[in-house]
């Protein structure tokens, strides 16, 4: 009997090996689709669905939809529109905004909701390694032919790759004219948020509710100890340009603090202030300001004044607590509010000991744009969501109050800045809105390209080896070109 058990166990073990072996061999092939696999099953190929018959002439769909959108029915979905609203995104952010602030939205479960009779389906695909973009690339070009319930109605984009979808030919994002949104509707929005999603012919194809101007978030206690002051205006004097910043880093080092958690913190500050885009035609070019980032960062790392952690990792996060010995992070309002462990006892944010100042150069970070997908069967609902979420002042005010986003409305930000009773607890009572509003005016988005995300990601990875002293600069640049070449085979240098 015992022998039997042993033999069964051994057999089971062997079978498991076989399966494990299969798993390993199949892993590379399975990896790509697995990473792209949408959270819901809505990506089913168009030809599988019998519903396709109903739309004998898919090409006519879009113009027909425009006509529907034209009537002044901007509160609810027209009765003859699709019953499923599909939304493509890469994280929970927009979902939670809609859940909390869109009138009439009811949550059903984690990936579905309801607006009136329309079911809202959320498909979340992570950004990393181009997975989200690859997913969009697969489904958007054929969206008009997809079965009614599978059609993408809204997709979200980030500034890093917005142009790819905005300039796509044929178009994949609906223009404001097609949606029936007028210039007057969106007059109270920052120009840079429109520039990012304006195509080569001047048509606007997306809207954002955020203005993600950012600044230097410093630890007030460290500032008081080392710099002798914790007031934003005075601290600004110690970090007003990169030379001063470097000098301050030395003083901080002597006192036992890192000036920033990682060199990757300051990357966006430099990369937002470039004089030419990453890619010209199909040639990759490295801007002098990016080179300056490498130079300054290498000096900081060599002097042990900062580290080379990757953003979002456990090492990088340590500075959210006093034991992390980090003086500052670079970031926008959403970083302060969501990412710095404000809910955790013992964190600096929890104690309200961060401060915000402009830092060496103005920059912005992140921001989500809402695009209506060409081929949508819910155009009037799409229009209403876009307008409600980005222009309705009552909703925007709610977003400020509940989520502390820096919203895309100069007039609202001005009101908030003037409101002396308002202060952020995390920032020790400081009212950051004047500074954020000023920053948003200064953002210049003329040098973005279709390839920014892949280039930024690969460049930071490649330079880490240089900062660590594993390779020289030329080798690191070469590794960068190799990695970009794998991501975008058409580019050369």
């Amino acid at each position, binding site marked *: 009997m015992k022998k039997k058990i*042993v033999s069964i*166990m*051994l057999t089971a*073990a*062997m079978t*498991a*090996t076989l399966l*494990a*072996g299969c798993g*390993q*061999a199949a*892993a*590379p*092939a399975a*990896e*790509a689709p697995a*990473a792209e696999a949408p959270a819901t099953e809505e990506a089913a190929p168009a030809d599988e669905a019998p519903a396709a018959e109903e739309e004998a002439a898919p090409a006519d769909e879009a113009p027909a939809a425009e006509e529907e959108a034209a009537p002044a029915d901007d509160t609810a979905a027209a009765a003859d529109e699709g019953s499923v609203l599909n939304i493509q995104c890469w994280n929970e952010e927009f979902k939670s905004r809609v859940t909390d602030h869109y009138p009439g939205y009811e949550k059903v479960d984690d990936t579905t909701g309801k607006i009136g009779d329309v079911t809202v389906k959320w498909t979340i695909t992570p950004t990393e*390694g*181009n*997975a989200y973009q*690859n997913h969009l*690339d697969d489904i*958007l*070009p054929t969206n008009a032919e997809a079965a009614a319930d599978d059609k993408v109605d809204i997709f979200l984009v980030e500034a890093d790759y917005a142009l*790819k*979808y905005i300039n*796509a030919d044929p178009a*994949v994002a609906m223009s404001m004219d097609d949606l029936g949104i007028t210039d007057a509707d969106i007059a109270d929005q920052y120009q840079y948020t429109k520039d990012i999603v304006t195509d080569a012919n001047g048509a606007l194809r997306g809207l954002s509710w955020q203005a993600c101007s950012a600044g230097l978030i410093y630890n007030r206690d460290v500032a008081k100890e080392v710099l002798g002051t914790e007031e934003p205006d005075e601290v600004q004097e110690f970090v007003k340009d990169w030379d001063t910043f470097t000098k301050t880093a030395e003083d901080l080092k002597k006192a036992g603090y890192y000036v920033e958690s990682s060199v990757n913190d300051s990357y966006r500050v430099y990369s937002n202030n470039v004089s030419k885009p990453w890619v010209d035609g199909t040639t990759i070019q490295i801007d002098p300001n990016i080179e300056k980032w490498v130079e300054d960062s290498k000096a900081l790392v060599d002097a042990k004044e900062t*580290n*080379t*952690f*990757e953003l979002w*990792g*456990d*090492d990088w996060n*340590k500075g959210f607590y006093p034991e992390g010995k980090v003086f500052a992070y670079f970031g926008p309002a959403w970083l302060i509010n969501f990412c710095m462990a404000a809910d955790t006892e013992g964190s600096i944010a929890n104690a309200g000991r961060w401060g915000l100042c402009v830092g060496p150069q103005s920059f912005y970070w992140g921001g989500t744009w809402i695009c209506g997908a060409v081929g949508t069967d819910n155009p009037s609902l799409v229009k209403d969501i876009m307008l409600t979420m980005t222009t309705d002042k009552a909703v925007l005010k709610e977003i400020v109050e509940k989520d502390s986003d820096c919203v895309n409305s100069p007039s609202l930000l001005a009101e908030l800045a003037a409101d002396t009773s308002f202060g952020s607890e995390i920032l020790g009572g400081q009212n950051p809105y004047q500074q954020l509003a000023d920053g948003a005016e200064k953002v210049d988005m003329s040098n973005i390209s*279709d390839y920014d995300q892949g280039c930024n990601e690969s460049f930071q*990875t490649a330079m*880490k*080896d240089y900062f*660590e002293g*594993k*390779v020289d600069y030329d*080798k*690191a640049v070469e*590794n960068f070109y*190799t*990695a970009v070449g*794998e*991501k*975008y*085979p*058409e580019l050369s240098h």
Partner: protein
Amino acid sequence: MEGASKKRGSSNVVKYNKWGYIFLLPFIIVYGTFQLIPFVSTIYYSFFENYRSGLKQIGPNFIGLENYHSLLSNADIWKYTENTFVMWILGFIPQIVISLLLAAWFSDPSLRLKGQRFFKTVIYLPNLIMAAAFAMLFFTLFADSGPINAMLTSSGILAEPYKFLANTGSARALVGFMNFLMWFGNTTILLLAGMMGIDISLYEAAEVDGATAGEIFWRITMPLLRPIFVFVLITSLIGGLQMFDVPQILTNGKGAPDRTTMTLIMFLNNHLFSKNYGMSGALSVILLIITGILSFAVYKFTTNQENYG
């Protein structure tokens, strides 16, 4: 008469053959759909320029051997081959040594080891954890400010944290170590099966003749174990060439530092991620050829010495 009976006989054979083929059919269908067709189309597409630029599909355009040329003329592929081998050997050597030792102990009747079943199960357990989860665990353990560094610094062994994943040697060693941990149980069981198949009277005869334990191992166990040993070696080699999940997760797909932990399959995965099907097809074919040559060489080398005295 004779002709007729022969005819009846052969028709019987045909009848049985038919059942043979019918029983084979499921395998052939599955093999054809999931192995043969993809295999042939991979080779076919390796001659095309076929990728996606933004939302535009480029190709497929026939470009002959251009994909192979650009892969082989670039030194990178050899570097990734070297990485793969170094990491495989780092894992395989401890794996085979420990496995042989354990298998020899388990199969030695004179040792009468207690709790064999327990240990056989325990050493197998690491293989049941998903490689990705295992790699994630090591990633956290060996992070710059992870528990391992915390222990080393607080006990005074290191002055400051050692960046395990930013140094070529330690990053490769970690990959090797993880593969060793995951696979030595499996290898032990395979070798053990081989050793238990050896006639016990040979050992008894050797003992009567006064052979030492070392002599018994090298002169009886090893030669008779050779077929299993070759099997283990070749399967491990092929598995090693396909090494992917551990380094992929451990280095977040970057192959850091300086692409020295980038394996061939990770390289393939990078191409697949950008939907560069032509290039990845060519790379797969090259991998197939490398695997074929190596397996053949190992097989020849190890079976040539079959005619020992």
